[in-house]
């Protein structure tokens, strides 16, 4: 097995998971002008719910999506309604969503304790499964996440460019007042988009519950990776997020294989800094939402 090739492949796939995790933040920021840190706790909360539903009802973990995804769509929508009522702006959103993040983290710890939670191989057949192509292994959980990210990225891209809703979203992202003046129901657009973002985060949580052991401290460890992907991919740009995820994942994976696992976080953050400094609008676009 070629070590570097394996590292790159698993890196690419986990990049899909990173992209999925970043979609929520990216869409909120790009289209709604809200830097929503609460998404990190949405991802984790979704993972805990998947764990709990799987273990309590003894079902296949992927089945729990039927409950979890709509639930978070509603949560996301409600959150946007709340933001609208309090008239939030970009600056305040950082602080307020940070507060929500802390509250949710604390709740999760109170309910599920700080101890590690794993679905267990009895109920979770995907955990260590993988598909082999030419001697290189593609682990199932991250592959599923990658495929999901791919579908959503392309789907959203089409939605945003072809549908009326998509056009409305882009209008709101560019200039909310103008959009409203032209008859777009900006509130409804924002609420739906926020709901979708939360649902995407929840989906990421599903694959995390399937692929890893979860504990409360996990959410904070995602900050660096997600922001790298969000900035590099361009705010609100879903295909960009996928590309960025793949880049970050494979760069970190290659670095880990070549220079040891300690190098991986360093590479991720250096990418983030480079992205912030040299290409804050993202790799693939010069506009904010496309």
């Amino acid at each position, binding site marked *: 097995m070629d070590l570097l090739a*394996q590292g790159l492949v698993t890196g690419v796939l986990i990049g899909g998971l990173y992209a999925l995790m970043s979609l929520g933040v990216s869409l909120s920021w790009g289209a709604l002008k809200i830097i929503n840190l609460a998404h990190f706790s949405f991802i984790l909360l979704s993972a805990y719910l998947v764990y709990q539903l799987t273990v309590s009802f003894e079902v296949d973990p992927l089945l729990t999506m039927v409950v979890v995804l709509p639930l978070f769509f509603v949560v996301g929508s409600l959150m946007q309604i709340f933001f609208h009522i309090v008239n939030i702006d970009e600056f305040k959103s950082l602080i307020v969503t940070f507060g929500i993040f802390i509250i949710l983290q604390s709740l999760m710890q109170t309910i599920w304790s700080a101890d590690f939670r*794993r679905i267990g191989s009895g109920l979770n057949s995907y955990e260590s499964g993988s598909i082999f192509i030419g001697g290189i292994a593609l682990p199932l959980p991250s592959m599923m996440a990658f495929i999901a990210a791919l579908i959503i990225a392309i789907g959203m891209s089409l939605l945003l460019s072809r549908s009326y809703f998509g056009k409305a979203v882009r209008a709101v992202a560019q200039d909310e007042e103008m959009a409203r003046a032209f008859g777009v129901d900006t509130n409804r657009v924002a609420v739906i988009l926020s709901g979708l973002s939360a649902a995407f985060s929840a989906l990421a949580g599903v694959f995390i519950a399937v692929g890893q*052991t979860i504990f409360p401290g996990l959410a904070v460890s995602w900050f660096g990776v997600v922001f790298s992907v969000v900035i590099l991919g361009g705010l609100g740009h879903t295909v960009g997020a996928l590309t960025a995820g793949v880049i970050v994942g494979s760069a970190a994976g290659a670095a880990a294989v070549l220079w040891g696992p300690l190098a991986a976080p360093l590479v991720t953050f250096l990418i983030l800094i480079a992205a912030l400094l040299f290409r804050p609008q993202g790799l693939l676009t010069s506009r904010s939402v496309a």
Partner: protein
Amino acid sequence: MRRQRRWRYLTVLAVLALVAAACDGGESTDTTAPGDTEAPGSTEAPEGTDAPTETTAAGEEADGDPIRIGGTLALTGFLAATGVIHQAVGEVFVDRINEQGGLLGREVEWVLLDDESLPENAAAAYERLITEDEVDLVIGPYGTGNITAAMAVAERYGYVFPHHTASLTYAYNYACHFSSWSTGLHPNITNPNLVYDAIESSGNTPETIGFVINEFPGTMFIAYGQEGTDEGGAVAEAEKRGYEVVLDITFPTAITDWAPVAAQVADADPDFLYIGGLGVNASQLITAMQAIDYTPRGMFTQWPAPGPLLDTEGADGIMSVTIFEEHPPFTDDPEAVEVAGLINEALADAGVPYTKVETQAAASWTAWEYLQQAAEGAGSLDQQAMCDWLLENGADTLFHGDIEFYPEEQNYFVDLSKVKQIQDGEWYVVYPEEYAAPDRSVVYNP
């Protein structure tokens, strides 16, 4: 401006909650059982008594002011998963000692605070407990960093400091610190050699060995020895035995992607894999290795969370170290069985998935025993008298046996660790032979 007003009222509500909380300021969390006891003044329960957690007969009450024992634990934060275990064990101990007449005839009260897994909080909390709350005794927190910080405070005020699993043994030279984690002063030498002896007792010797080490002070110490000394650790000791080190990598504590590590292990393909890990490190790594269809021929992990590993596919045969396990010969002592049962219950109540007593719970119980025996032996709560008594007499503990404190070894004893292995889906001690579970021994076939 209606909106503004709405938020003002919310703020008022929030602050009212704070006022309610602040009004409780100065009181401690109370973990005592009601004051009914059986035999006041007795120190040890006679062997074989069934002491239920709820007392039945109303005996004499332990009189006088309660003895207040202060301490913190990592009840929140990244060490909380294990902190919860120590909390449960401590509560069982305090309940039990109170049922048996208290300490020196007085009720025991545990003033427990949360240090949020942060050493600076631990230090501040111990200062508060000692100088503001004026507790009579202290007991250590959980986590090397927290223990180190708290020990400095205890030393400053001359308090006897029993503690459990602080891994950086070389750093502790306070004359009155008493560790209940029986690894001796040089676990970086004794622990790996114990493991290698165990492996070789199977009749097979690994030619190549790989190391995957968590970049956490304790695991780094065991693997590489103390910085600035020639002593070395697991890696150096392996080389001394002629094992060829084919992999030696360190991973960050907050690692998110195990796949590259798994790939590197598979590529190096060592006869034996030494995982210097904590918590779920080993579980995650094994899962990642299974995903690329690789199973190491032999594995060891330093300080795992024991429960998750039992559930992990591919983890069969992995070894670790322990001080106590719930099977014979450890369970030959009925009192140990009884206490273990109480702890099982308490852990289950606390929502901890794996409720068996092993290293952490055993070490926790033992630290409390030090405190109890020191006070009873010295006949008072005078810190120096208690300290001297322990140094002279050692302690007779339930889970660790007889312990002595060697001042020349910074109050450490010898390495009492044993090696356990997952066989048939359960943990069994397999080495040394006299402690192995019945009909169990090390399985290693590279």
